[in-house]
């Protein structure tokens, strides 16, 4: 008897091996986001060794951040086509190689290439696949799982910063980079944890899958003929890419993408300009550093508690609105910031902003998963993080230019606040429009109900109403072209 290759499709386990996936994703966020933030601790050493000024050395951090976000779609493509495990392990090896080569650097340009581009690429291959994997394993407890997984960046920065300082004191920056390269190799361990899982949803569109698969088989058969293979390869690639990225045409996703652009523009300057602003209003250096630590710690608390909170029964179906609320509150905090001119006022600001910053970071993957579904989550997350890259790169210099020309921080903070509020308002508006359309259609559907109800008794009548239903469905479709049963 021929063996049947059964791919066992399940529903998300919401536990079990899922918690190992969460642990793996937690470690991935530590090794990528926290290590990126700790690279700035090396700057003083690079400045004295290479005798360059701060602006030249700060480029390393910008390059890593930018490359990590820009290549996020590449990461999701690799993990979709090869496998999540292979993708993350490859990323871990690349990032580790970047650090190890960086420890032998003889000039700042070498560091740009090794520590900047190579490590950033490695991180990009790990970050979005790991986050997407958590979404696959969790359904009901998704927000809590993401909260725990994303808190890795805050906790990691908290723990790694003194450790990196200690390493630099013991082994100087070369030895510290080498050992950090070994630490980053733990990404391979995280990769090994990411066991693949096939979900029921993956078989939602069997037709397109079948078309792609047959094309792949044809490709293997006609491999001797080189010209044909090129054509086949191109069509196959187009077909596969088309299928993977069809969520880009969804109106919901486009709205989310635009709002993410504005939100990313707004959130990044605060971490750069809070300390200079605090110093300009008369807060001492130590107190300003204390404000930043509060921001970091409350960020972690916001991650975990908001994830837990939005999993409660009352808020379970309102992830979208919670996300809106968190982004809006952050924007509101920004608008209040120019009025806060002393330390007792800045501490509650730090707490509030940090909490909601952690909150919306937890909810980004949840909201994306709700819009595109779990199959395309990996690619969608890749695109969402890609959209973070350009605002992250562009926003702090623009804020800096505003501060220099106007002479105060008010204009920069107001711009960021309005950007974030616009992002949240846009999402709320889109949801409102969608709801209005739904109620309109429901209203029209209700009007035709009485006729159907007469015919719903008995099996014979059922078939009659079904015919009528079909006819009505057709008529409804012709009357309102935008109608689609959701």
């Amino acid at each position, binding site marked *: 008897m021929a063996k049947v290759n059964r791919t066992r499709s399940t529903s998300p386990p919401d536990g079990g091996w899922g918690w190992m996936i969460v642990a793996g994703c937690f470690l991935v966020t530590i090794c990528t986001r926290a290590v990126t933030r700790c690279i700035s601790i090396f700057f003083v050493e690079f400045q004295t060794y290479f005798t360059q000024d701060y602006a030249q050395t700060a480029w390393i951090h910008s390059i890593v951040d930018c490359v990590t976000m820009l290549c996020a779609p590449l990461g999701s493509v690799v993990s979709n086509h090869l496998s999540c495990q292979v993708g993350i392990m490859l990323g871990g090896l690349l990032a580790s190689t970047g650090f190890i080569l960086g420890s032998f650097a003889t000039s700042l340009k070498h560091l740009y290439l090794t520590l900047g581009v190579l490590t950033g690429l490695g991180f990009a291959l790990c970050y979005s696949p790991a986050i997407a994997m958590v979404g696959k394993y969790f359904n009901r407890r998704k927000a809590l799982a993401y909260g725990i997984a994303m808190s890795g960046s805050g906790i990691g920065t908290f723990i790694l910063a003194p450790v990196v300082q200690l390493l630099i004191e013991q082994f100087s920056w070369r030895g510290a980079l080498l050992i950090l390269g070994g630490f980053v190799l733990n990404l*391979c361990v995280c990769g090994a944890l990411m066991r693949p899982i096939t979900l029921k949803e993956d078989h939602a569109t069997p037709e397109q899958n079948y078309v792609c698969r047959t094309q792949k088989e044809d490709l293997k058969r006609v491999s001797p003929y080189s010209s044909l293979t090129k054509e086949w390869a191109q069509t196959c690639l187009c077909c596969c890419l088309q299928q993977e990225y069809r969520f880009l045409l969804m109106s919901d996703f486009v709205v989310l993408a635009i709002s993410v652009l504005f939100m990313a523009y707004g959130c990044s300057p605060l971490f750069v300009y809070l300390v200079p602003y605090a110093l300009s209003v008369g807060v001492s250096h130590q107190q300003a550093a204390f404000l930043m630590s509060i921001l970091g710690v409350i960020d972690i608390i916001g991650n975990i508690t908001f994830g837990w909170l939005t999993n409660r029964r009352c808020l379970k179906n309102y992830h979208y609105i919670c996300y809106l609320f968190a982004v809006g509150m952050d924007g509101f905090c920004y608008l209040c910031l120019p009025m806060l001119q002393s330390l007792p006022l800045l501490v509650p600001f730090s707490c509030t902003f940090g909490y909601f910053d952690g909150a919306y970071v937890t909810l980004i993957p949840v909201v994306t998963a709700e819009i595109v579904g779990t199959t395309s989550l990996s690619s969608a997350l890749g695109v969402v993080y890609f959209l973070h890259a350009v605002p992250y790169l562009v926003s702090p210099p623009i804020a800096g230019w505003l501060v220099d020309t106007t002479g105060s921080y008010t204009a920069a903070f107001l711009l960021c606040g309005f950007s974030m509020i616009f992002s949240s308002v846009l999402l709320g508006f889109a949801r409102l429009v969608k709801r209005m359309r739904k109620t309109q259609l429901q209203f029209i559907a209700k009007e035709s109900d009485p006729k159907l109800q007469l015919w719903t008794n008995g099996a014979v009548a059922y078939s009659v109403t079904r015919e009528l239903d079909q006819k009505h469905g057709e008529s409804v479709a012709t009357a309102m072209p935008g109608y689609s049963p959701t």
Partner: protein
Amino acid sequence: MEGRAPRDRLRGVVQDGRAPPIPPFLQRPVRGTGSGLRATGECAQGLPAPASRGSSPPGPRRTPGAMRALSGLLGARAPTPRLLLLLQCLLATARPGSADDSAPDSPFTSPPVREEMLEKYSNFSLENHNISLTEHSSMPVEKNITLERASNIKLTCQFTTSGDLNAVNVTWKKDDELLENNYLVNATGSTLYTQYRFTIMNSKQMGSYSCFFQEEKEQKGTFNFKVPELHGKNKPLISYVGDSTVLTCKCQNCVPLNWTWYHSNGSVQVPVGVQMNKYVINETYANETKLKIKQLLEEDGGSYWCRALFQLGESEGHIELVVLSYLVPLKPFFAIVAEVVLLVAIILLCEKYTQKNKKHSDEGREFEQIEQLKSDDSNGIENNVPRLRKNESTGQ
């Protein structure tokens, strides 16, 4: 000396042959006239001091010239020392002050030699320092002053007491040696002011200058003069064999005349020579020096000293250099790599094991289902349907 009235002090000192202090009628000038105070100060500076006292301000150098000039003015007959001093003081009071205080108008002109000497020292900056003491001060008050170049110094101590101001004995000391002259005392209300003016020109004149107020208890105020200090780093600088490193010595707010580097591996200090391939000294800014060492070897480790030379002394900074070999960070690195490889191997093996188990259980279940179907063939269709359904639900 303690407990005596100023008048007695004056007489006693003259009898001993030491430099006479300020004449009594000039010691307590009218309230509010700073010029009077100034005049007496200058007078005090111009008075002769014994040559044996090396730590005293440069009075001795001035006095022979002043004496000669005065004798020249007064005629061939050398007047008595006391009369000379009196005349000198009168002339000094007539002279206008050299600093901020208002000058008294006087018909007298100052002797030319005195002018010249004062002009030499008027190029230096004037430093004013004050200490306040009360009768209830429990601890001696200290003030630290950093000086890098020669300057004129004016030290003022004020003492507030409820008791009798005349009963207070005022003295000045430098490093436990008594200073006899050149200081003045002034009383305003319940506060006693004493002022000491001098010029610091070389490192021997640096040290601690103290004012003492003796009532029942002795109250002390100290001014400590030091050259600017170089702050060395507490933590050692780490580098590797074959690498290059930069040692920096910086002086905040001061400009040394010269920098030198020394290396000590053990106890002997060896000056660092400028060998072209090995050491490069870079002094782009006057207040910092950078020593770049290339091609490091293990022997290059140890203590490095940077010495800053000032007009008034020297200051040293210390940097510790540790040279490691590349094997030192490689050990933790390989430990972490070994841990990663081990964990990855364990996790992948676990995964394969659980997959095998699942496959076996799958195959087992398939086999069971096939067997059941075969056995059910004989039964009716109705029995099959519910059983199949049950199998399907358990199979998933």
